[in-house]
Protein backbone atom coordinates (compact mmCIF):
# COMPACT_ATOMS: atom_id res chain seq x y z
CA UNK A 1 0.00 0.00 0.00
CA UNK A 2 1.17 3.52 -0.73
CA UNK A 3 2.13 5.62 2.26
CA UNK A 4 -0.14 8.65 2.48
CA UNK A 5 1.30 12.03 1.53
CA UNK A 6 0.61 13.64 4.91
CA UNK A 7 0.28 12.52 8.51
CA UNK A 8 -3.14 13.42 9.96
CA UNK A 9 -1.67 16.50 11.63
CA UNK A 10 0.00 17.63 8.45
CA UNK A 11 -3.22 17.08 6.55
CA UNK A 12 -5.08 19.30 8.99
CA UNK A 13 -2.50 22.01 8.66
CA UNK A 14 -2.52 21.82 4.88
CA UNK A 15 -6.32 21.91 4.68
CA UNK A 16 -6.55 24.90 6.98
CA UNK A 17 -3.96 26.72 4.97
CA UNK A 18 -5.64 26.07 1.64
CA UNK A 19 -8.98 27.22 3.05
CA UNK A 20 -7.41 30.48 4.25
CA UNK A 21 -5.64 31.03 0.92
CA UNK A 22 -8.76 30.46 -1.13
CA UNK A 23 -10.54 33.17 0.86
CA UNK A 24 -8.06 35.70 -0.57
CA UNK A 25 -9.22 35.26 -4.16
CA UNK A 26 -12.47 35.57 -6.10
CA UNK A 27 -14.47 32.33 -5.90
CA UNK A 28 -14.04 31.64 -9.61
CA UNK A 29 -10.27 32.20 -9.44
CA UNK A 30 -9.16 29.42 -7.14
CA UNK A 31 -6.12 28.57 -9.23
CA UNK A 32 -4.69 32.02 -8.42
CA UNK A 33 -3.62 30.53 -5.08
CA UNK A 34 -1.09 28.29 -6.86
CA UNK A 35 2.11 29.94 -5.61
CA UNK A 36 1.15 30.12 -1.94
CA UNK A 37 -0.41 26.65 -2.09
CA UNK A 38 2.83 25.16 -3.42
CA UNK A 39 4.68 27.05 -0.71
CA UNK A 40 2.39 25.48 1.90
CA UNK A 41 3.05 22.03 0.43
CA UNK A 42 6.78 22.54 0.46
CA UNK A 43 6.74 23.94 4.00
CA UNK A 44 5.31 20.63 5.17
CA UNK A 45 7.11 18.13 2.94
CA UNK A 46 10.42 19.92 2.35
CA UNK A 47 9.81 19.64 -1.39
CA UNK A 48 7.00 19.30 -3.96
CA UNK A 49 6.48 15.59 -4.61
CA UNK A 50 4.29 14.54 -7.57
CA UNK A 51 1.39 13.44 -5.33
CA UNK A 52 1.59 16.82 -3.63
CA UNK A 53 1.35 18.66 -6.95
CA UNK A 54 -1.66 16.54 -7.83
CA UNK A 55 -3.32 17.36 -4.54
CA UNK A 56 -2.70 21.10 -4.89
CA UNK A 57 -4.10 20.98 -8.42
CA UNK A 58 -7.19 19.16 -7.25
CA UNK A 59 -7.85 21.62 -4.44
CA UNK A 60 -7.44 24.58 -6.76
CA UNK A 61 -9.64 23.07 -9.43
CA UNK A 62 -6.93 22.86 -12.04
CA UNK A 63 -4.74 20.25 -13.70
CA UNK A 64 -1.57 18.69 -12.37
CA UNK A 65 0.17 19.85 -15.54
CA UNK A 66 -0.56 23.44 -14.49
CA UNK A 67 0.81 22.76 -11.02
CA UNK A 68 3.93 21.22 -12.50
CA UNK A 69 4.37 24.05 -14.97
CA UNK A 70 4.33 26.61 -12.17
CA UNK A 71 6.48 24.56 -9.78
CA UNK A 72 9.14 24.10 -12.46
CA UNK A 73 9.19 27.78 -13.47
CA UNK A 74 10.17 29.16 -10.06
CA UNK A 75 13.56 28.20 -8.63
CA UNK A 76 12.43 28.10 -5.01
CA UNK A 77 10.21 25.05 -5.48
CA UNK A 78 12.08 21.79 -5.21
CA UNK A 79 10.86 19.10 -7.57
CA UNK A 80 13.50 16.76 -6.24
CA UNK A 81 14.13 16.19 -2.58
CA UNK A 82 17.04 18.54 -1.80
CA UNK A 83 19.86 18.07 0.70
CA UNK A 84 19.07 19.13 4.23
CA UNK A 85 20.49 22.59 3.55
CA UNK A 86 20.17 24.47 0.31
CA UNK A 87 22.96 27.05 0.21
CA UNK A 88 22.32 29.85 -2.28
CA UNK A 89 25.35 32.10 -2.81
CA UNK A 90 24.90 35.44 -4.58
CA UNK A 91 27.64 35.99 -7.15
CA UNK A 92 26.12 38.97 -8.88
CA UNK A 93 28.07 42.17 -9.52
CA UNK A 94 27.94 43.99 -6.17
CA UNK A 95 28.68 40.81 -4.25
CA UNK A 96 31.55 39.84 -6.56
CA UNK A 97 33.01 43.31 -5.97
CA UNK A 98 33.13 42.27 -2.31
CA UNK A 99 34.66 38.85 -2.94
CA UNK A 100 31.69 36.57 -3.67
CA UNK A 101 33.54 34.54 -6.29
CA UNK A 102 36.27 33.84 -3.76
CA UNK A 103 33.72 33.03 -1.10
CA UNK A 104 32.00 30.54 -3.38
CA UNK A 105 35.32 28.88 -4.22
CA UNK A 106 36.02 28.55 -0.50
CA UNK A 107 32.59 27.01 0.12
CA UNK A 108 33.02 24.56 -2.74
CA UNK A 109 36.23 23.41 -1.14
CA UNK A 110 34.79 23.33 2.36
CA UNK A 111 31.67 21.37 1.40
CA UNK A 112 33.40 19.22 -1.21
CA UNK A 113 30.80 20.25 -3.81
CA UNK A 114 30.84 22.26 -7.02
CA UNK A 115 28.14 24.89 -7.43
CA UNK A 116 25.05 23.08 -8.70
CA UNK A 117 25.92 19.82 -6.92
CA UNK A 118 24.27 18.23 -3.92
CA UNK A 119 24.99 15.57 -1.34
CA UNK A 120 22.86 14.24 1.53
CA UNK A 121 23.47 17.32 3.61
CA UNK A 122 24.04 20.24 1.26
CA UNK A 123 22.78 21.55 -2.05
CA UNK A 124 25.14 24.31 -3.16
CA UNK A 125 23.91 26.80 -5.77
CA UNK A 126 24.91 30.11 -7.25
CA UNK A 127 21.99 32.45 -7.05
CA UNK A 128 21.10 35.91 -8.25
CA UNK A 129 21.07 39.21 -6.42
CA UNK A 130 19.41 38.81 -3.02
CA UNK A 131 18.85 42.54 -2.38
CA UNK A 132 21.77 42.70 0.05
CA UNK A 133 24.22 44.40 -2.27
CA UNK A 134 25.11 46.95 0.42
CA UNK A 135 25.95 44.21 2.90
CA UNK A 136 27.85 41.95 0.53
CA UNK A 137 28.77 39.18 0.25
CA UNK A 138 25.70 37.25 1.24
CA UNK A 139 24.01 33.88 1.00
CA UNK A 140 20.86 32.08 2.07
CA UNK A 141 20.66 28.76 3.82
CA UNK A 142 17.21 27.40 3.14
CA UNK A 143 15.19 30.56 3.71
CA UNK A 144 17.50 32.24 6.16
CA UNK A 145 19.51 35.16 5.01
CA UNK A 146 23.11 35.95 6.05
CA UNK A 147 24.98 39.13 5.13
CA UNK A 148 28.38 40.87 5.40
CA UNK A 149 30.10 37.49 5.49
CA UNK A 150 33.75 37.13 6.35
CA UNK A 151 35.56 33.82 6.34
CA UNK A 152 35.30 33.60 10.11
CA UNK A 153 31.56 34.35 10.07
CA UNK A 154 30.93 31.83 7.32
CA UNK A 155 32.91 29.10 9.07
CA UNK A 156 31.00 29.68 12.29
CA UNK A 157 27.70 29.62 10.43
CA UNK A 158 28.34 26.37 8.55
CA UNK A 159 30.03 24.60 11.42
CA UNK A 160 27.20 25.16 13.85
CA UNK A 161 24.43 23.88 11.56
CA UNK A 162 22.71 20.98 13.29
Amino acid sequence: MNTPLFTPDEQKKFDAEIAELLSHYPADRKSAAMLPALRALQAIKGWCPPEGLALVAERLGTTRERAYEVASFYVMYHLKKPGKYTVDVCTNLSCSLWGAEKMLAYLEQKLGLKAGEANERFFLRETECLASCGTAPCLQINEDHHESLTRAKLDALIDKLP
Partner: protein
Amino acid sequence: MAAPVIEPLISKYWGSPQSWTLDAYRKRGGYEGLKKALEMAPAAVIDEVKKSNLRGRGGAGFPTGLKWSFVPKDSPKPKYLAVNGDESEPGTFKDRYILELDPHMMLEGIAIAAWALGVHTCYVYLRGEFKFPAERCQAAIDEAYKAGIFGKKVLGKDFELNCYLVRGAGAYICGEETALLESLEGKKGWPRLKPPFPAVVGLFGCPTVVNNVETLASVPHVFAMGPEKYAKLGTDKSGGTRLVCLSGTVNRPGVYECSMHTTFNDLIFGDAYGRGLPNGRKVKAVIPGGSSAPVLSPHELGTAMEFEALKPLQSMAGSGGVIVMDDRTCMVRSLWRVARFYAEESCGQCTPCREGTPWQTRLLRKIEEGRADMEDLELLSNVATSIAPYPPIGLGNTICALGDAAALPTHSFLMRFRAEFEAHIHEKRCPFGDKPWGEFGEWS
Protein backbone atom coordinates in the same frame (compact mmCIF):
# COMPACT_ATOMS: atom_id res chain seq x y z
CA MET B 1 28.82 72.63 -4.94
CA ALA B 2 27.35 69.67 -3.18
CA ALA B 3 23.56 69.43 -2.93
CA PRO B 4 22.36 69.94 0.63
CA VAL B 5 21.80 66.86 2.75
CA ILE B 6 18.05 66.65 3.20
CA GLU B 7 15.77 65.79 6.05
CA PRO B 8 14.73 62.22 5.27
CA LEU B 9 11.05 61.37 4.88
CA ILE B 10 11.01 57.64 4.25
CA SER B 11 14.05 56.49 6.16
CA LYS B 12 13.80 58.93 9.06
CA TYR B 13 12.86 56.38 11.71
CA TRP B 14 14.81 53.35 10.52
CA GLY B 15 17.11 53.48 13.51
CA SER B 16 14.47 54.09 16.17
CA PRO B 17 13.19 51.38 18.51
CA GLN B 18 10.23 49.27 17.32
CA SER B 19 9.98 51.51 14.25
CA TRP B 20 7.94 48.85 12.45
CA THR B 21 5.01 48.77 14.88
CA LEU B 22 1.68 50.56 14.50
CA ASP B 23 2.15 52.18 17.87
CA ALA B 24 5.44 53.78 16.93
CA TYR B 25 4.09 54.80 13.55
CA ARG B 26 1.03 56.49 15.04
CA LYS B 27 3.09 58.31 17.68
CA ARG B 28 4.99 60.08 14.94
CA GLY B 29 1.87 61.15 13.08
CA GLY B 30 1.31 58.02 11.03
CA TYR B 31 -2.04 57.59 9.23
CA GLU B 32 -2.75 61.34 9.48
CA GLY B 33 -2.22 61.59 5.72
CA LEU B 34 -4.85 58.90 5.19
CA LYS B 35 -7.30 60.83 7.38
CA LYS B 36 -6.84 63.89 5.19
CA ALA B 37 -7.21 61.89 1.99
CA LEU B 38 -10.42 60.23 3.20
CA GLU B 39 -11.98 63.67 3.61
CA MET B 40 -11.41 64.39 -0.07
CA ALA B 41 -13.25 63.05 -3.09
CA PRO B 42 -11.28 60.29 -4.85
CA ALA B 43 -10.68 62.43 -7.94
CA ALA B 44 -9.25 65.18 -5.73
CA VAL B 45 -6.86 62.67 -4.16
CA ILE B 46 -5.54 61.79 -7.61
CA ASP B 47 -5.14 65.49 -8.39
CA GLU B 48 -3.08 66.00 -5.25
CA VAL B 49 -0.76 63.16 -6.27
CA LYS B 50 -0.43 64.68 -9.74
CA LYS B 51 0.46 68.03 -8.19
CA SER B 52 3.14 66.41 -6.05
CA ASN B 53 5.12 65.31 -9.13
CA LEU B 54 5.66 61.93 -7.51
CA ARG B 55 7.17 59.50 -10.01
CA GLY B 56 7.31 55.72 -9.74
CA ARG B 57 10.32 54.36 -7.92
CA GLY B 58 10.18 50.89 -9.48
CA GLY B 59 12.35 51.69 -12.47
CA ALA B 60 10.52 53.56 -15.20
CA GLY B 61 9.85 56.77 -13.25
CA PHE B 62 6.30 57.03 -14.56
CA PRO B 63 4.23 59.85 -12.97
CA THR B 64 2.12 58.19 -10.28
CA GLY B 65 -0.91 60.47 -10.40
CA LEU B 66 -1.11 60.12 -14.15
CA LYS B 67 -0.98 56.32 -13.87
CA TRP B 68 -3.82 56.39 -11.36
CA SER B 69 -5.90 58.58 -13.67
CA PHE B 70 -5.78 55.91 -16.42
CA VAL B 71 -8.01 53.59 -14.41
CA PRO B 72 -11.52 53.80 -15.89
CA LYS B 73 -13.92 55.36 -13.40
CA ASP B 74 -17.08 53.72 -14.66
CA SER B 75 -15.82 50.15 -14.98
CA PRO B 76 -18.40 47.60 -13.81
CA LYS B 77 -15.54 45.24 -12.92
CA PRO B 78 -13.71 45.31 -9.60
CA LYS B 79 -10.41 47.16 -9.57
CA TYR B 80 -7.17 46.00 -7.99
CA LEU B 81 -3.99 47.40 -6.56
CA ALA B 82 -0.85 45.27 -6.83
CA VAL B 83 2.22 46.32 -4.89
CA ASN B 84 5.51 45.48 -6.53
CA GLY B 85 7.92 44.24 -3.87
CA ASP B 86 9.81 41.89 -6.14
CA GLU B 87 13.00 43.95 -5.72
CA SER B 88 15.37 41.78 -7.76
CA GLU B 89 17.20 44.20 -10.05
CA PRO B 90 20.89 43.73 -9.17
CA GLY B 91 22.12 46.65 -7.10
CA THR B 92 18.70 47.41 -5.59
CA PHE B 93 18.00 46.87 -1.89
CA LYS B 94 15.76 49.65 -0.63
CA ASP B 95 12.20 48.31 -0.58
CA ARG B 96 13.37 45.61 1.73
CA TYR B 97 14.18 48.19 4.43
CA ILE B 98 10.78 49.85 4.10
CA LEU B 99 9.15 46.46 4.58
CA GLU B 100 11.38 45.59 7.51
CA LEU B 101 11.59 48.92 9.30
CA ASP B 102 8.55 51.00 8.38
CA PRO B 103 5.90 48.81 6.72
CA HIS B 104 3.00 50.98 7.92
CA MET B 105 4.23 53.83 5.75
CA MET B 106 3.61 51.62 2.72
CA LEU B 107 0.28 50.37 4.11
CA GLU B 108 -0.90 53.95 4.58
CA GLY B 109 0.03 54.63 0.96
CA ILE B 110 -1.95 51.55 -0.06
CA ALA B 111 -5.04 52.77 1.78
CA ILE B 112 -4.80 56.22 0.18
CA ALA B 113 -4.34 54.71 -3.28
CA ALA B 114 -7.25 52.33 -2.75
CA TRP B 115 -9.55 55.21 -1.76
CA ALA B 116 -8.45 57.25 -4.77
CA LEU B 117 -8.94 54.35 -7.17
CA GLY B 118 -12.02 52.67 -5.71
CA VAL B 119 -10.04 49.51 -5.02
CA HIS B 120 -11.29 47.04 -2.42
CA THR B 121 -8.58 44.40 -2.76
CA CYS B 122 -4.84 44.90 -2.70
CA TYR B 123 -2.17 42.25 -3.15
CA VAL B 124 1.34 42.93 -1.88
CA TYR B 125 3.68 40.79 -3.96
CA LEU B 126 7.08 40.19 -2.37
CA ARG B 127 9.94 38.25 -3.87
CA GLY B 128 10.08 34.73 -2.50
CA GLU B 129 13.43 35.18 -0.80
CA PHE B 130 12.06 37.96 1.44
CA LYS B 131 11.23 35.83 4.46
CA PHE B 132 11.99 38.38 7.17
CA PRO B 133 10.53 41.36 5.27
CA ALA B 134 7.40 39.27 4.67
CA GLU B 135 7.07 38.48 8.37
CA ARG B 136 7.34 42.15 9.33
CA CYS B 137 4.94 43.19 6.60
CA GLN B 138 2.37 40.53 7.51
CA ALA B 139 2.55 41.55 11.17
CA ALA B 140 1.86 45.15 10.13
CA ILE B 141 -1.09 44.09 7.96
CA ASP B 142 -2.51 42.14 10.91
CA GLU B 143 -2.14 45.22 13.13
CA ALA B 144 -3.86 47.35 10.50
CA TYR B 145 -6.84 44.98 10.37
CA LYS B 146 -7.12 44.99 14.16
CA ALA B 147 -6.97 48.77 14.30
CA GLY B 148 -9.73 49.23 11.73
CA ILE B 149 -7.46 50.54 9.01
CA PHE B 150 -8.12 47.54 6.78
CA GLY B 151 -11.28 45.46 6.72
CA LYS B 152 -14.96 46.36 6.40
CA LYS B 153 -14.25 50.01 7.14
CA VAL B 154 -11.20 52.19 6.70
CA LEU B 155 -10.77 54.44 9.75
CA GLY B 156 -14.52 54.37 10.29
CA LYS B 157 -15.37 55.29 6.73
CA ASP B 158 -17.80 53.06 4.87
CA PHE B 159 -15.20 51.73 2.51
CA GLU B 160 -14.03 48.11 2.51
CA LEU B 161 -10.37 47.35 1.92
CA ASN B 162 -8.65 43.98 2.09
CA CYS B 163 -4.95 43.52 1.80
CA TYR B 164 -3.17 40.20 1.21
CA LEU B 165 0.51 39.42 1.13
CA VAL B 166 1.73 37.02 -1.56
CA ARG B 167 5.25 35.68 -1.81
CA GLY B 168 6.86 34.88 -5.13
CA ALA B 169 9.18 31.94 -5.53
CA GLY B 170 12.41 33.10 -7.13
CA ALA B 171 11.96 34.68 -10.56
CA TYR B 172 13.33 38.15 -11.39
CA ILE B 173 10.93 38.48 -14.29
CA CYS B 174 7.98 38.68 -11.87
CA GLY B 175 9.10 42.26 -11.12
CA GLU B 176 7.93 43.19 -14.61
CA GLU B 177 4.40 44.37 -13.99
CA THR B 178 2.51 42.06 -16.31
CA ALA B 179 4.59 39.03 -15.28
CA LEU B 180 3.75 40.00 -11.70
CA LEU B 181 0.05 39.91 -12.57
CA GLU B 182 0.43 36.49 -14.20
CA SER B 183 2.20 35.28 -11.09
CA LEU B 184 -0.57 36.70 -8.89
CA GLU B 185 -3.01 34.74 -11.03
CA GLY B 186 -1.11 31.61 -10.07
CA LYS B 187 0.82 31.14 -13.29
CA LYS B 188 4.40 31.16 -14.45
CA GLY B 189 5.74 34.68 -14.90
CA TRP B 190 5.36 35.27 -18.61
CA PRO B 191 4.98 38.99 -19.42
CA ARG B 192 1.97 40.03 -21.46
CA LEU B 193 2.03 41.95 -24.69
CA LYS B 194 1.09 45.60 -24.12
CA PRO B 195 -1.25 47.32 -24.81
CA PRO B 196 -3.66 46.81 -23.17
CA PHE B 197 -1.97 48.22 -20.10
CA PRO B 198 -2.76 46.91 -16.61
CA ALA B 199 -4.67 50.09 -15.72
CA VAL B 200 -7.32 48.89 -18.19
CA VAL B 201 -6.84 45.10 -18.37
CA GLY B 202 -4.84 43.86 -15.41
CA LEU B 203 -5.38 41.27 -12.71
CA PHE B 204 -8.16 38.78 -13.59
CA GLY B 205 -8.88 40.97 -16.62
CA CYS B 206 -9.81 43.91 -14.39
CA PRO B 207 -8.33 47.44 -14.14
CA THR B 208 -5.22 47.25 -11.97
CA VAL B 209 -2.60 49.67 -10.74
CA VAL B 210 0.87 48.27 -10.15
CA ASN B 211 3.07 50.44 -7.93
CA ASN B 212 6.44 49.94 -6.33
CA VAL B 213 6.80 49.68 -2.53
CA GLU B 214 8.73 52.95 -2.24
CA THR B 215 6.26 54.77 -4.48
CA LEU B 216 3.43 53.86 -2.13
CA ALA B 217 5.50 54.67 0.95
CA SER B 218 6.00 58.15 -0.50
CA VAL B 219 2.27 58.80 -0.90
CA PRO B 220 1.46 59.55 2.78
CA HIS B 221 4.05 62.34 2.77
CA VAL B 222 2.29 64.03 -0.13
CA PHE B 223 -0.78 64.35 2.09
CA ALA B 224 0.99 64.97 5.39
CA MET B 225 2.94 67.97 4.07
CA GLY B 226 0.77 68.91 1.09
CA PRO B 227 1.59 68.28 -2.57
CA GLU B 228 3.15 71.68 -3.25
CA LYS B 229 5.68 71.31 -0.48
CA TYR B 230 6.41 67.73 -1.53
CA ALA B 231 6.94 68.76 -5.15
CA LYS B 232 9.29 71.56 -4.08
CA LEU B 233 11.66 69.09 -2.46
CA GLY B 234 12.49 67.80 -5.92
CA THR B 235 13.05 69.18 -9.39
CA ASP B 236 10.52 70.60 -11.87
CA LYS B 237 9.38 67.23 -13.07
CA SER B 238 10.22 64.98 -10.16
CA GLY B 239 8.93 65.61 -6.67
CA GLY B 240 10.02 64.46 -3.24
CA THR B 241 13.03 62.49 -2.07
CA ARG B 242 14.22 59.10 -3.14
CA LEU B 243 16.06 56.15 -1.73
CA VAL B 244 19.35 55.40 -3.42
CA CYS B 245 21.19 52.11 -2.93
CA LEU B 246 24.95 52.46 -2.98
CA SER B 247 27.09 49.34 -3.44
CA GLY B 248 30.39 48.20 -4.93
CA THR B 249 33.81 49.65 -4.12
CA VAL B 250 32.96 52.45 -1.68
CA ASN B 251 33.85 52.86 1.96
CA ARG B 252 30.27 53.11 3.15
CA PRO B 253 27.75 51.20 1.03
CA GLY B 254 24.09 51.42 2.07
CA VAL B 255 20.70 52.98 1.41
CA TYR B 256 20.64 56.78 1.51
CA GLU B 257 17.66 59.04 1.15
CA CYS B 258 18.68 61.77 -1.27
CA SER B 259 17.32 64.89 -2.81
CA MET B 260 16.65 64.79 -6.54
CA HIS B 261 19.51 67.30 -6.84
CA THR B 262 22.14 65.03 -5.29
CA THR B 263 24.79 64.04 -7.83
CA PHE B 264 26.63 60.75 -8.18
CA ASN B 265 29.79 62.48 -6.99
CA ASP B 266 27.97 63.71 -3.86
CA LEU B 267 26.74 60.19 -3.20
CA ILE B 268 30.02 58.40 -3.76
CA PHE B 269 32.31 60.89 -1.99
CA GLY B 270 30.04 62.82 0.39
CA ASP B 271 30.59 62.58 4.11
CA ALA B 272 26.93 61.81 4.71
CA TYR B 273 27.02 59.03 2.12
CA GLY B 274 29.68 56.76 0.61
CA ARG B 275 32.83 58.56 1.88
CA GLY B 276 34.85 57.73 -1.19
CA LEU B 277 36.84 54.72 -2.29
CA PRO B 278 39.30 52.78 -0.13
CA ASN B 279 43.08 53.13 -0.31
CA GLY B 280 43.09 55.99 -2.80
CA ARG B 281 41.46 53.94 -5.54
CA LYS B 282 39.75 55.85 -8.34
CA VAL B 283 36.33 55.36 -9.87
CA LYS B 284 36.41 53.61 -13.22
CA ALA B 285 32.72 53.04 -13.89
CA VAL B 286 29.35 53.55 -12.22
CA ILE B 287 26.08 51.81 -12.97
CA PRO B 288 23.51 54.47 -12.09
CA GLY B 289 20.15 52.72 -11.67
CA GLY B 290 20.29 48.96 -11.27
CA SER B 291 22.35 46.65 -13.47
CA SER B 292 20.24 47.28 -16.57
CA ALA B 293 21.02 51.02 -16.62
CA PRO B 294 23.74 52.03 -19.11
CA VAL B 295 27.09 52.43 -17.34
CA LEU B 296 28.65 55.87 -16.80
CA SER B 297 32.27 57.07 -16.94
CA PRO B 298 33.88 59.12 -14.14
CA HIS B 299 33.52 62.43 -15.98
CA GLU B 300 29.72 61.99 -16.09
CA LEU B 301 29.26 61.74 -12.33
CA GLY B 302 28.46 65.41 -11.76
CA THR B 303 24.94 64.56 -12.94
CA ALA B 304 21.99 64.54 -10.53
CA MET B 305 20.55 61.11 -9.74
CA GLU B 306 17.17 61.98 -11.18
CA PHE B 307 15.11 60.59 -14.05
CA GLU B 308 15.35 63.56 -16.45
CA ALA B 309 18.99 64.36 -15.71
CA LEU B 310 20.17 60.98 -16.97
CA LYS B 311 18.35 61.16 -20.29
CA PRO B 312 20.99 63.27 -22.10
CA LEU B 313 23.58 60.68 -21.08
CA GLN B 314 21.44 57.94 -22.66
CA SER B 315 21.15 56.28 -19.29
CA MET B 316 18.50 56.03 -16.60
CA ALA B 317 17.91 56.49 -12.88
CA GLY B 318 15.97 53.21 -12.87
CA SER B 319 15.56 51.57 -9.50
CA GLY B 320 18.13 53.70 -7.68
CA GLY B 321 20.81 51.01 -7.53
CA VAL B 322 24.20 52.73 -7.86
CA ILE B 323 27.12 50.30 -8.30
CA VAL B 324 30.67 51.66 -8.14
CA MET B 325 33.59 49.89 -9.82
CA ASP B 326 37.13 51.00 -9.01
CA ASP B 327 40.11 51.23 -11.36
CA ARG B 328 41.21 47.68 -10.63
CA THR B 329 37.91 46.14 -11.73
CA CYS B 330 37.71 44.22 -14.99
CA MET B 331 34.93 45.58 -17.19
CA VAL B 332 34.62 42.35 -19.18
CA ARG B 333 34.21 40.24 -16.08
CA SER B 334 31.70 42.74 -14.66
CA LEU B 335 29.63 42.76 -17.82
CA TRP B 336 29.77 38.97 -17.98
CA ARG B 337 28.18 38.76 -14.53
CA VAL B 338 25.43 41.15 -15.58
CA ALA B 339 24.83 39.37 -18.91
CA ARG B 340 24.70 36.00 -17.19
CA PHE B 341 22.01 37.30 -14.85
CA TYR B 342 19.69 38.35 -17.67
CA ALA B 343 20.29 35.07 -19.49
CA GLU B 344 19.32 33.15 -16.35
CA GLU B 345 16.21 35.23 -15.83
CA SER B 346 14.88 35.44 -19.39
CA CYS B 347 11.44 33.84 -19.40
CA GLY B 348 12.07 32.36 -22.84
CA GLN B 349 9.03 33.72 -24.64
CA CYS B 350 10.76 35.85 -27.27
CA THR B 351 13.48 34.51 -29.54
CA PRO B 352 15.85 37.54 -29.45
CA CYS B 353 15.90 37.49 -25.66
CA ARG B 354 15.89 33.72 -25.14
CA GLU B 355 18.68 33.07 -27.68
CA GLY B 356 20.51 36.40 -27.49
CA THR B 357 21.07 36.59 -23.74
CA PRO B 358 22.99 33.30 -23.38
CA TRP B 359 24.87 34.10 -26.57
CA GLN B 360 26.07 37.40 -25.10
CA THR B 361 27.13 35.52 -21.99
CA ARG B 362 29.15 32.92 -23.92
CA LEU B 363 30.88 35.58 -26.00
CA LEU B 364 31.81 37.57 -22.92
CA ARG B 365 33.24 34.49 -21.23
CA LYS B 366 35.28 33.84 -24.34
CA ILE B 367 36.64 37.40 -24.32
CA GLU B 368 37.35 37.27 -20.59
CA GLU B 369 39.30 34.04 -20.96
CA GLY B 370 41.41 35.41 -23.81
CA ARG B 371 39.99 33.06 -26.43
CA ALA B 372 38.24 35.65 -28.58
CA ASP B 373 39.18 37.62 -31.68
CA MET B 374 37.97 40.99 -32.95
CA GLU B 375 35.12 39.39 -34.87
CA ASP B 376 33.66 38.15 -31.61
CA LEU B 377 33.51 41.74 -30.43
CA GLU B 378 31.51 42.71 -33.53
CA LEU B 379 29.31 39.70 -33.04
CA LEU B 380 28.66 40.67 -29.42
CA SER B 381 27.59 44.11 -30.50
CA ASN B 382 25.33 42.63 -33.20
CA VAL B 383 23.70 40.19 -30.81
CA ALA B 384 22.92 43.03 -28.40
CA THR B 385 21.48 45.08 -31.27
CA SER B 386 19.25 42.21 -32.32
CA ILE B 387 17.73 42.19 -28.83
CA ALA B 388 17.47 45.97 -28.54
CA PRO B 389 19.29 48.67 -30.54
CA TYR B 390 20.83 51.63 -28.65
CA PRO B 391 20.77 54.58 -28.38
CA PRO B 392 18.17 55.67 -27.49
CA ILE B 393 16.68 53.48 -24.75
CA GLY B 394 13.43 51.69 -25.42
CA LEU B 395 13.76 50.26 -28.93
CA GLY B 396 13.60 46.63 -27.82
CA ASN B 397 12.32 43.92 -30.17
CA THR B 398 10.77 41.93 -27.37
CA ILE B 399 7.55 41.55 -25.40
CA CYS B 400 8.94 43.08 -22.23
CA ALA B 401 11.79 45.36 -21.24
CA LEU B 402 13.99 42.55 -19.92
CA GLY B 403 15.32 42.39 -23.44
CA ASP B 404 16.34 46.05 -23.25
CA ALA B 405 17.73 45.46 -19.76
CA ALA B 406 20.00 42.74 -21.14
CA ALA B 407 21.18 44.66 -24.19
CA LEU B 408 21.79 48.10 -22.64
CA PRO B 409 24.70 47.03 -20.42
CA THR B 410 26.45 45.41 -23.39
CA HIS B 411 26.00 48.45 -25.62
CA SER B 412 27.10 50.91 -22.97
CA PHE B 413 30.13 48.93 -21.75
CA LEU B 414 31.30 48.56 -25.35
CA MET B 415 30.71 52.23 -26.01
CA ARG B 416 32.62 53.50 -22.98
CA PHE B 417 35.20 50.80 -22.28
CA ARG B 418 35.93 49.30 -25.67
CA ALA B 419 39.70 49.52 -25.20
CA GLU B 420 39.52 47.12 -22.29
CA PHE B 421 37.65 44.54 -24.36
CA GLU B 422 40.25 44.90 -27.10
CA ALA B 423 43.07 44.49 -24.57
CA HIS B 424 41.65 41.09 -23.58
CA ILE B 425 41.71 40.08 -27.23
CA HIS B 426 45.21 41.39 -28.00
CA GLU B 427 46.80 40.05 -24.83
CA LYS B 428 44.83 36.78 -25.10
CA ARG B 429 44.10 36.95 -21.38
CA CYS B 430 42.39 39.08 -18.76
CA PRO B 431 44.78 41.96 -17.99
CA PHE B 432 43.68 41.70 -14.34
CA GLY B 433 44.73 38.06 -14.10
CA ASP B 434 43.03 36.27 -11.24
CA LYS B 435 42.13 39.53 -9.49
CA PRO B 436 39.37 41.01 -11.66
CA TRP B 437 37.21 42.37 -8.84
CA GLY B 438 38.96 45.50 -7.64
CA GLU B 439 39.97 46.64 -4.20
CA PHE B 440 37.48 44.57 -2.17
CA GLY B 441 37.49 41.54 -4.46
CA GLU B 442 39.84 39.49 -2.30
CA TRP B 443 37.58 38.03 0.31
CA SER B 444 38.93 37.26 3.75
